[in-house]
């Protein structure tokens, strides 16, 4: 059973546009929600993370929006650049548990 559901599977955005990736979860015990960026042939790199006590976190062009009641969170990439083209994974973690539960990934392509 997929603990974290991610959409869309792929996304094409024009340079300068906004990229939006969505994730949903069921387990209300999750208390840490990171996003990872993965380039081909590389391991995932931590991009930004949020805890459920805040509704939004912004770091540069990257923003996480968190809706606790809906059990959903999303990544927004503002002013998307071709260098942002990568696969993005959302994940969820429960303190005291032993592993991250990952979404299935979104392949983002930013066209010039």
């Amino acid at each position: 059973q997929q603990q974290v559901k991610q959409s869309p599977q792929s996304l094409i955005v024009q340079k300068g546009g906004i990229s939006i990736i969505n994730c949903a979860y069921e387990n209300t015990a999750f208390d840490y929600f990171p996003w990872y960026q993965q380039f081909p042939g590389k391991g995932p790199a931590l991009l930004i993370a949020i805890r459920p006590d805040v509704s939004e976190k912004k770091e540069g062009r990257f923003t996480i929006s968190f809706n606790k009641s809906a059990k959903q969170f999303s990544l927004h990439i503002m002013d998307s650049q071709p260098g942002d083209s990568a696969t993005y994974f959302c994940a969820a973690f429960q303190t005291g548990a032993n592993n991250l539960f990952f979404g299935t990934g979104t392949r983002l392509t930013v066209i010039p």
Partner: protein
Amino acid sequence: GAGVSQSPSNKVTEKGKDVELRCDPISGHTALYWYRQRLGQGLEFLIYFQGNSAPDKSGLPSDRFSAERTGESVSTLTIQRTQQEDSAVYLCASSPPTGNEQYFGPGTRLTVT
């Protein structure tokens, strides 16, 4: 500082052979994780080590998979009698004593022919 390193970066093996994959975590990180990533898919948890505690092996897909860790340093993941469905990228991650952040290595791409 140095990140998580893994070796080899690529491994091609024949079906039925055993393979050993290595992970060097970030110095000072007490937690170590192994994940499997099949082509085009998300990461699948395999095993977790925390200090000297007994590992959480709940994600290992079969008894052909095993892993060891020496203290808070190197870990090896061993796959015995490899099968074609074992072909994947095997990723290692480590975490500091405080915080939930996991830092990943570049992975080992395993191809079983």
